[in-house]
């Protein structure tokens, strides 16, 4: 297990390093100099040079890359070109909207998908199974931002149970914050729940055909007991992987959902920064997103190997 962990850790570090190189150089080749963008067309050459020096744009690219990566490792993400505030402050403020939203959606999606998948698998081929599977087909096909608009129309505009958009802030209390995130979280969770329910069902059906399930029945367990004691635990392994993968979809999806609900999260920060050519902010937020995806997948791999010893040797 230690050897496996080390191997995966090295590959994690390599992935992060390559990702940082890709992000930095892809954005650096972008046309449009931030300094000349900020000063406008009629800027004096001296002013431009002064601003470029102030922003640190006059040093060679490779040095800037090292400074950027070195800064991130020590928690210094640089200073925003337009707002002149440390990027870390801008990001951490937004993170407190995007991250709870993604986690809330993940919890909702799991809470919906598990019962639906288990129910469908236990009634394979019957009306209940066909009903659940039909619903998941529909759930996969619905764009989450459109679903979000429908939720706003029904629950915010017509029923007035929720605000149509905006975020009250966590200082108004935990429940007020959760209340504001409920509609966005439902919108994000529904398509993911549909996928997860399908995975849960097929994984459970695979397990139900195994010999040890027949043995469990043979030793006198009812179908229900065998399902809960032996089936579910074994079916969970592929389901866990999908949950890990979905985290990245939820983070990315929250970028779009934030637009529907006017939430001050990472997504809005990225779009504002792109239009202001505030590249250092774009770089840092994208790197943060990629970092969390790679790290979550790494943790899922480890959890996977901890549960299933067969996987350790394969790496």
């Amino acid at each position, binding site marked *: 297990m230690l050897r496996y962990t080390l191997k995966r850790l090295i590959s994690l570090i390599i992935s992060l390093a390559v990702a940082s190189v890709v992000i930095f150089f892809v954005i650096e080749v972008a046309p449009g100099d931030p300094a000349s963008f900020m000063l406008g067309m009629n800027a004096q050459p001296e002013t431009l040079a002064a601003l470029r020096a102030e922003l640190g744009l006059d040093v060679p690219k490779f040095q800037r890359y090292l400074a950027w990566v070195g800064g991130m490792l020590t928690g210094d993400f640089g200073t925003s070109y337009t707002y002149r505030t440390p990027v870390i402050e801008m990001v951490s403020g937004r993170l407190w909207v995007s991250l709870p939203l993604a986690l809330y959606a993940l919890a909702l999606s799991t809470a919906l998908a598990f019962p639906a998948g288990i129910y469908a698998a236990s009634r394979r081929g019957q009306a209940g199974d066909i009903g659940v599977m039909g619903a998941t087909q529909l759930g996969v*096909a619905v764009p989450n931002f459109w679903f979000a608009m429908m939720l706003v129309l029904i629950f915010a505009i017509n029923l007035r149970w929720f605000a149509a958009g905006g975020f009250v802030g966590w200082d108004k209390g935990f429940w007020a914050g959760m209340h504001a995130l409920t509609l966005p979280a439902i919108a994000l969770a529904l398509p993911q729940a549909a996928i997860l329910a399908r995975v849960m069902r097929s994984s459970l059906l695979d397990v139900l055909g195994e010999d040890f399930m027949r043995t469990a029945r043979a030793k006198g367990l009812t179908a229900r007991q065998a399902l809960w004691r032996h089936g579910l635990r074994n079916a969970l392994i592929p389901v866990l992987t999908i949950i890990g993968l979905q985290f990245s979809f939820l983070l990315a999806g929250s970028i779009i959902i934030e637009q529907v609900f006017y939430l001050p999260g990472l997504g809005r920060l990225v779009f504002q920064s*792109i239009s202001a050519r505030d590249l250092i902010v774009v770089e840092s937020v994208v790197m943060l997103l990629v970092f969390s995806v790679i790290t979550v997948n790494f943790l899922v791999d480890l959890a996977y190997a901890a549960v299933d010893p067969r996987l350790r040797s394969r790496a």
Partner: protein
Amino acid sequence: MKRNLIIGGALSALFVLAALISFVWTPYDHTALDIPNKLKVPHAEHLLGTDHFGRDILSMIMVGARTSIAVALVAVGIGMGLGIPLGLWAAARQGSWVDELIMRGNDLVFAFPSLVIAILITAIFGAGAVNAIIAIGIFNIPVFARITRGAALSLWQREFILAARVAGKSATRISVEHILPNVTNLLIVQGTIQFSLGILAEAGLSYVGLGAQPPTPSWGRMLADAQTLVSIAPHMALMPGFAIILTVLGLNLMGDGLRDYLDPRLRVART
């Protein structure tokens, strides 16, 4: 389960047909403004109603289908065109540094959700349909590479491949002549699924303004326009939404149906 294939095929065909017909005929000019008739709910003259400029929503959806289908189709083409050869190559050199490099590269691309790729590309080149295609296409490459490699690996263990090697065929020829034809079914099914994901992604990108730019109509942008008017003209949001849902649903059903139809082993397992 032939029902899936028929319903899915019919739904998909309906939208492809709508897109094709829109080249020669639409009920109204999709750009024609008709302010006195703005925000009309669906009625006999405008079957799906009109938007805030009085444009005919049915005509816009028909022309928008072109954008959706074109973007998704080319993106799947990019994914297949690069992903399949990479997957075949990795499988042919299983365990070598080539295999390792391709698979790690795949993992890396997977770490960038398609929307994040789109944001990066937009930050550099600006928004537009072509950049949306590239973003969705890049995301498709590892999907096809992985699925091709997985299927090809098990084929390389088979006797008929051994026979081909004994006959002196090169790894490249074996990959093209023997491996590829045997993974085609799998790739067609995955292609259908990626096509539907591409339509969803295109809608999402153009909704946030990263996709097709005006005046090119697209379903995502129609929804973005509808957002502020959703309380007074819900049909503006409902109609393009239904178009997306029905197309994606149709493609997914068709993919499921094709999988069952093309893989006889599954048919036996079902009964």
